[in-house]
């Protein structure tokens, strides 16, 4: 049935994360926006010690599944999107391992996130200087060394979120996309788990950004970086001599590029939910501030009395809610195991753009108050913009949506 009624678990989780957002994140929002590359120790420690296990709730009661995950992401980004990205979790690296790894790999790489005695991070390294949305164009190579049964990685990755923590703190890992054969195009692209501190992986820089400054956006260089063959995510490629059919040798590709792209179907609704969280921070503040100034918002005002301000705010509310509902729909499909490639991209495209505009509008409507660094409204505008860029830009998501609705392949609609 169609219902917008959250389960008790979701309601509880929302309240729990909202409190965390307001009590743990907001008070240090400005501090770590200004101290760009500092580790937000109080937040990292708090999360690791008190929040890692998740919100209290009933394990057996009804669950909203991935919608609840979206609700959590929204609440935490309502707190602070950058601190959310700095949480010690397996993050996107974890999603990749969960989506494409074997059971053994999932156990090996994800267990430390439950058992480590200190905070650790996971990350995903895809983007290169000349390969962003066109991830099939990546140049980082993986060469198999049969003598040592290892893969050798060579290349440079940029824009790796949580890349400092994941590459430098023992126990974490970076999932690196690399090609094992450039002539195969996207078919040659595989993902490899590179544990933190692996020799040959170097952190060479952190980006200085418009927003989400508390998030470590790393440049990682790989120089003959060796990982065991068992770190290639998915089914290990069999040596050719053992293969029974010609196709068997290429089976490693089963979960290669396609599998990696499937992680986006899972992560895009979450990024959309994060966007909605930032947008809500801004919009809630705007409405509260208007209330403090004696401006009440009416949904039944006489047409000739509706102010431009009221109209703008109604528009912002409608846009934010449309984005939120598209996000929940994509997440709900995931819970049901239904393909959601189209809906995930719709949610991400809508939320990224809607929230970019909402946060910009809030700065405008609040005048000097919104523009001032005394408050966080200007920060939310800077933080929001990334949502229309990472995890697939607005345009790449439009492209995905367009291909789906037109039933065009990637070669028919470039």
């Amino acid at each position, binding site marked *: *049935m*169609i*219902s*917008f*009624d*959250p*389960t008790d678990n*979701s309601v509880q989780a929302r309240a729990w994360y909202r409190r965390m957002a307001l009590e743990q994140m907001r008070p240090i929002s400005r501090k770590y926006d200004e101290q760009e590359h500092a580790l937000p120790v109080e937040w990292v420690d708090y999360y690791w010690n008190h929040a890692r296990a998740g919100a209290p709730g009933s394990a057996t009661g*009804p*669950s*909203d599944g991935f*919608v609840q995950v979206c609700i959590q992401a929204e609440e935490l980004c309502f707190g602070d999107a950058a601190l959310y990205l700095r949480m010690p979790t397996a993050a996107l690296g974890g999603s990749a391992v969960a989506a494409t790894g074997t059971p053994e790999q999932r156990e090996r790489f994800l267990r430390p996130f439950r058992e480590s005695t200190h905070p650790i991070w996971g990350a995903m390294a895809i983007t290169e200087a000349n390969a962003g949305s066109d991830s099939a164009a990546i140049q980082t190579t993986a060469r198999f060394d049969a003598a040592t049964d290892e893969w050798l990685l060579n290349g440079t990755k940029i824009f790796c979120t949580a890349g400092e923590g994941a590459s430098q703190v023992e126990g974490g890992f970076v999932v690196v996309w690399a090609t094992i054969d450039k002539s195969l195009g996207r078919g040659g692209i595989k993902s490899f788990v590179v544990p933190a501190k692996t020799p040959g992986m170097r952190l060479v820089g952190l980006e200085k950004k418009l927003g989400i400054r508390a998030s470590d956006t790393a440049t990682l260089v790989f120089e003959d970086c060796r990982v065991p063959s068992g770190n290639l995510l998915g089914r290990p490629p069999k040596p050719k001599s053992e293969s029974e059919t010609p196709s068997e040798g290429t089976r490693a590709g089963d979960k290669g590029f396609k599998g990696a792209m499937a992680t986006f179907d899972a992560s895009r609704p979450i990024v959309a939910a994060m966007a909605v969280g930032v947008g809500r921070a801004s919009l809630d503040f705007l409405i509260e501030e208007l209330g403090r100034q004696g401006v009440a918002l009416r*949904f*039944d005002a*006489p*047409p*000739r009395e509706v102010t431009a301000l009221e109209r703008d705010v*109604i*528009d912002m*509310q*409608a*846009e934010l*809610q*449309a*984005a939120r*509902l*598209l996000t*929940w*729909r994509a997440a*709900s*499909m995931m819970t*049901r195991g239904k393909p959601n490639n189209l*809906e995930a991209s*719709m949610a991400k*495209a*809508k939320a990224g753009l809607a929230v970019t505009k909402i946060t910009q509008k809030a700065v405008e409507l609040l005048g000097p108050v919104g523009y001032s660094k005394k408050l966080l409204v200007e920060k939310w505008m800077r933080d929001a913009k990334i949502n229309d860029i990472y995890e697939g830009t607005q*345009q790449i998501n*439009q*492209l995905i*949506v*367009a*291909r789906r*609705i*037109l039933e*065009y392949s990637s070669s*028919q*609609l*470039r």
Partner: protein
Amino acid sequence: MIEFEPTEEQTLIVDTVREFAASELRPLARESDESAKTPSELLARAHELGLVANSLPEEFGGGGSRSALTGALVAEELAFGDLALALAVLAPSLLALPVADFGTAAQKAALLPELIANASCAGTLALVEPRFDSDAYRPRTRARRDAGGWVLDGAKCLVPWLFGVRHVLVLASAGESLAGFIVPSDAAGLKVTPEAYMGVRALPLVELGLDGVRVPGDARLGGETSPDLRALVARGRVGLAALGVGVARAAFELARDYAKQRQAFGAPIATKQAIAFKLADMAIEIDGARLLAWEAAWKLDRGEDATREAALAIHQVRRVALEVADGAVQVFGGHGYVREYLPELLLRNARGFACFEALTLV
């Protein structure tokens, strides 16, 4: 639990209505717009389908399954066929639903059996007024008490007036409250003037002049309980939002199919990002607007105040329906501007949502 899947029963209804819209409404869309007429056979077939009766109380012969959400699903499908004909098909609910919701026992007994059994529309509703600032919540049309009855003065427009209308529910300000009065279509002082608009031309619409129209005390909807009918505005907005989504979807699908077939520079224009991205945006906006309408409908079904949700939904749909219809005209290029194709009709219809209030109810 937060879910987005219609029930099996709703899916069945949607499939039936979709088929009905495809076979009965869409083929008539152009012709009925040109002739500015709703074919009476269409209304008879819609009545057989029980689209309105299904949501009316069983004790008066209805189906007893009232749901704003189901109503929204039905409305979208019908409007996907054609907006003007959808409004005509759903018109019996304009009087029947308010009577079912707010009417006294006597009002229900007097009106519902006929509204349910009779295929020709026997009731309508008048809310919008012929002013730039027509206010759904505070009509200028006023009702004042007089000698145990009521006297109505004012003007209404955009009142659906299909063949066989016997009663019109006139919404008027009674003091501070939004009240409804059941007025016979031949009441003294009631002047009925046919109107024509840019869009929804197939739907017969009239302007009503109310010049000292006297009705007895029991003509007030709900009688002595004097219910405030503000909730009807939300019910209208949810229904209109769903209709608007249907119009937008019709425009989108026409544009999508045309873009895949129309060749330029040796390839379908849909293979160009300028067109493909426009279509992608249309699809995204339509889905977002639909979910807002669903949420508002869901809230109504829970018996909660949905003023805010309905306002957000109609706000969004007013923009989305217009933009998508305009986009369809643009994708069709010159062909979008000529009456041989439907986009121009959809654009004219879509603009109507800016001023429609309570032209349908869920």
